[in-house]
C-alpha cells in the first residue's frame, strides 16, 4: 500500500479539525492569552462574538498638562506650518499619527471596554505586553508640551503608568453594568525597547473569566526609546498656570546633552474657566457654533470654544495675560535674580473684511483672576521698539524636586484698544541678572512666531461681539 493515500487522508482530516474545532475553541479563550497572539486569538479590530465584551483603544496625547508627547515621524515628511507653535499640539498629533509616527520614551493609550448587554463586567487587572521588535525609527522628531488630548474627557480615569522593560500586572477593580462602559488612560514607557505592544485586560463577564486584548484599532501600539527633548528647559514652565500647549519639531537626531544654560520662555495664558474669552478669527468657525449650542453645561463651553478657536488660528483681542518663565538648570545656590522685560512692538492693520469676533463668559468668570497675579501691565498703541513692562523685578528661582531645574514665572498683562482690524505683533526682550551682576539677554517669541494681540474699540467687552456666549449655571469643584 503506498503512502500517498494515508498522507492525503491525514492531511485533510487535520485541516478539517483546525477549521471546525480549533478556531472556535481559540475564540472562547479558556486560558489567559499567551504573550504572543496565538492563531485565531484576538485577531482583527477588537470585534468580539455576539454577547461578549467589546474593547476599543487608540493613541492619546498624554495624561495631563504636565505630560510631554514625543515621537519620530518617518523620513521624507516635512511638518506643516499649521502643526507647529502655540496651541497646535492637537494638529501636530493628528498629522504625525496619520503618518505612523512612533512615540519615543512614553506612549499613552486611551481605551474603553463595553460590557455585554445581559451581564456586567469587572476589570481585575491590566498589563502591557511587548510584541515584535521594530527597527529604530528614523526621521523628524516632534514634541508636544502640555500634551492634553482634546478627545479624552478630563473625567476619564488615569489608571497608571506601566513599563515595557519591567512588565507587571496593574491590579484594579472597575465595574461596568450591562451595556455600560469602563475605560481610562494608560501610560507606557521604555528605555531600550523599539517594539510593538498592546494591552491585555483580565475581566470577569458575569461568572466567566476572559482576557481581552486592547490595541490601536486592530494594530499594535508602537514605542521606541526616548530622545532628547526639543524645547528649552524653560519652555512649558507656565503650563501649570494655564498657558497654551506648544508643538515643536527637530530635523535629524538629537545630539549632545541638554543645555545647562539659563533659558527664558514666554507664553500666553488661556482664559480657561475663570476669565472671559475674547478672540477674533478670519472666518466664522462652525465648530464653535456647535459647541455653544447648549450653554447649560457650565465649565465645559467656553474652555472648549477657546481651544477650538486657538487651534484654528484665531487671535486674542483686547486684553491678554502672559507668563515669562526663567529656568536655570545649573543653579543650586544663589537663586535670586533680577528680571527686566520689555516689548518690541509692530503695529499692522488687517486687510480685507473685518474679523469675526467671539466672546464667552464662563460660569465662574472673574476679571481679576489673571490680572491678580500680574506684576505689570502695558497698553499698546503704536510701533514701539522698546516698551518696558517689568523693570528690576526680583524673582526667586525654585526647584520643585531634585530632578527639575530651578524655575520662576512672572506674569504681565497687555491691552490693545483701537479700531477694528488693528493688530500688534511683538516679541519680548528679557534681561536676567544674577547675584554676581552677570547679565544675560534673551529675545523671546511665541514658539517660533511673534505674539499677536488684536485691538478692540474702547468701551467694548466680549458681550458686544457677533458671537457672544454666557455659560449657564455654576459648577463648583
Amino acid at each position, binding site marked *: 500500500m503506498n503512502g500517498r493515500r494515508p498522507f492525503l487522508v491525514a492531511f485533510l482530516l487535520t485541516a478539517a479539525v483546525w477549521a471546525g474545532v480549533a478556531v472556535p475553541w481559540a475564540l472562547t479563550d479558556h486560558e489567559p492569552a499567551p504573550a504572543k497572539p496565538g492563531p485565531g486569538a484576538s485577531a482583527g479590530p477588537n470585534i468580539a462574538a455576539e454577547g461578549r465584551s467589546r474593547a476599543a483603544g487608540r493613541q492619546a496625547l498624554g495624561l495631563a498638562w504636565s505630560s510631554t508627547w514625543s515621537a519620530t515621524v518617518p523620513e521624507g515628511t516635512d511638518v506643516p506650518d499649521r502643526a507647529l507653535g502655540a496651541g497646535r499640539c492637537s494638529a501636530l498629533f493628528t498629522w504625525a499619527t496619520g503618518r505612523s509616527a512612533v512615540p519615543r520614551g512614553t506612549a499613552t493609550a486611551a481605551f*474603553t471596554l463595553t460590557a455585554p448587554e445581559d451581564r456586567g463586567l469587572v476589570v481585575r487587572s491590566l498589563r502591557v505586553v511587548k510584541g515584535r521588535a521594530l527597527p529604530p525609527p528614523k526621521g523628524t522628531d516632534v514634541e508636544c508640551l502640555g500634551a492634553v488630548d482634546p*478627545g479624552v474627557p478630563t473625567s476619564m480615569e488615569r489608571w497608571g503608568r506601566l513599563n515595557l522593560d519591567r512588565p507587571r500586572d496593574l491590579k484594579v477593580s472597575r465595574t461596568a453594568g450591562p451595556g455600560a462602559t*469602563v475605560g481610562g488612560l494608560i501610560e507606557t514607557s521604555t528605555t531600550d525597547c523599539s517594539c510593538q505592544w498592546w494591552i491585555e485586560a483580565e475581566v470577569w463577564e458575569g461568572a466567566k473569566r476572559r482576557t481581552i486584548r486592547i490595541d490601536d484599532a486592530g494594530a499594535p501600539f508602537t514605542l521606541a526609546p526616548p530622545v532628547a527633548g526639543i524645547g528649552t528647559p524653560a519652555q512649558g514652565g507656565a503650563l501649570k498656570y494655564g498657558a497654551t500647549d506648544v508643538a515643536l519639531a527637530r530635523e535629524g537626531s538629537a545630539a549632545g546633552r541638554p543645555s545647562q544654560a539659563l533659558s527664558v520662555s514666554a507664553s500666553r495664558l488661556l482664559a480657561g474657566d475663570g476669565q472671559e474669552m475674547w478672540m477674533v478669527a478670519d472666518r466664522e468657525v462652525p465648530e464653535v457654533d456647535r459647541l455653544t449650542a447648549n450653554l447649560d453645561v457650565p465649565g465645559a463651553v467656553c474652555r472648549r470654544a477657546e481651544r477650538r478657536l486657538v487651534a484654528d488660528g484665531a487671535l486674542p483681542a483686547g486684553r491678554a495675560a502672559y507668563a515669562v518663565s526663567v529656568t536655570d538648570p545649573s543653579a543650586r545656590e544663589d537663586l535670586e535674580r533680577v528680571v527686566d522685560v520689555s516689548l518690541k512692538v509692530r503695529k499692522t492693520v488687517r486687510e480685507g473684511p473685518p474679523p469675526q469676533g467671539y466672546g464667552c463668559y464662563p460660569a465662574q468668570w472673574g476679571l481679576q483672576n489673571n490680572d491678580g497675579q500680574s506684576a505689570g501691565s502695558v497698553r499698546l498703541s503704536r510701533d514701539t521698539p522698546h516698551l518696558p513692562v517689568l523693570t528690576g523685578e526680583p524673582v526667586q528661582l525654585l526647584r520643585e524636586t531634585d530632578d527639575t531645574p530651578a524655575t520662576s514665572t512672572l506674569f504681565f498683562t497687555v491691552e490693545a484698544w483701537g479700531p477694528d482690524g488693528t493688530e500688534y505683533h511683538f516679541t519680548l526682550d528679557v534681561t536676567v541678572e544674577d547675584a554676581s551682576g552677570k547679565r544675560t539677554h534673551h529675545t523671546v517669541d511665541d514658539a517660533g512666531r511673534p505674539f499677536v494681540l488684536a485691538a478692540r474699540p474702547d468701551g467694548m467687552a466680549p458681550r458686544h461681539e457677533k458671537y457672544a456666549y454666557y455659560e449657564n449655571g455654576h459648577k463648583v469643584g
Partner: protein
Amino acid sequence: MGRVVRPLVGPAHGEIPSALLRARAKMKRFSLNFPAHSPRSDGGERVPETPETETAEPGDPASPPDEDAPAAGTPRDAAPPARGRTRTIVAAALGIVVSTALAAAVTTYLDVWSSSRSPVPAGQGLHAESEVWWDLTRDTKAVRIPGTADVAELEQEAMDAGTALDGLVEADGTYAGMMRVRVTLMNFTKVPVSVTGVRARVTEEEPAPEGDLLSCGGAEGSTGITRLRIDLGASDTAAQEYDGEKAVGQYPSQEMQLAKQDEPAVFDIRVEAGETTASYVLDVVYQQGTEKGRVVVDDGGKPFVLAPDEGDIDSAYRCDDSMTHWEKQP
C-alpha cells in the same frame, strides 16, 4: 532467533530478487542450526557459540513459503503487512504535520493581514462617563435617611454641609428630589456619533424610607435655564428638551449632540424624582454612520438612585448660608 531482513522498498508483487532469495535461504539455515542462547547449567558465564560459517550457494531457488516458515512464529508472512503498516503510519504522521504547519502559516498570515490598520467598525468605540452634581445656586441638594439625623455630630465631623450629605449617602442615605447628571461621550473612531435619544430606565423601585431629610442650596431657585430634563415620575422617562420654561419636545429637538474623535459630546440632564425611590440607568441611543447603537450610562458600575423629597418625612433640616450648620424646619 535469526535477524529477519526486510527490504525497504519491496519488489513488484511476485518478483523476488535473487540476492534476497539467497539471503532468505541463509537465514533459514542460520535460524534452524543456531540454538537459543541459554545460561550454562553450572551458572558459569555463557560463551556464545560460534555461528556457523555461511556457505555461498548460488542459484538457490526461492523456498516455498511453508518450508521457509520457522517453527517458532511467522515473521516472514508478517513482513509485507508490517512494512505497509509502518509506511502508512509515517505517511499519516507526515500528513498531520504538514497540515498543521500549513494551518498555522495561513492563520498567522491572516492574523497579520487582518491586524493591519483598519478603522474600528461603526457601532463600537463609544465610551460613556457620568458625573452627578448640583448647582447649589439654583438646585436643592437633599439626602433622605432612614431614622433620625444626628445633626450635632454632622456639624462636628464634616467640613461643610455638601460633604456631610455625601457622607450620609455613603452610609445608608439616598439623594432626594433632584440631581444633575453630566454625560460625556467619547468617540474612539473617525466616524462622528450623533445622539438620537436619551431615556431613564428604572431598574428597581421601592417605597421611600421613613426618616429625616437634610437639604442645602437652591437660594436663587429657577429651573428655567435647564435645557434637558427627565422626570422619573412621568409615564415617559425620555429626556425632554426645554427652551426656557417651554417644552419643545423629546430630546433632541433643537440641538444635536455630536461626539467626534477629537471632541467628546458633553451634556447635562436635570433628573427629577418620582414618588418612589428609583434605581435607574440612562440609555443613550446614537447613530454612527448607518449603524444604530445604544450605550448604557450608570454611576460607576451601579445604577443612579433618587428618592422623593416629599412624603413620609419625620424631620427636615436645612443648612444655613455658610453651609456649616443645620436648622430644623417647622
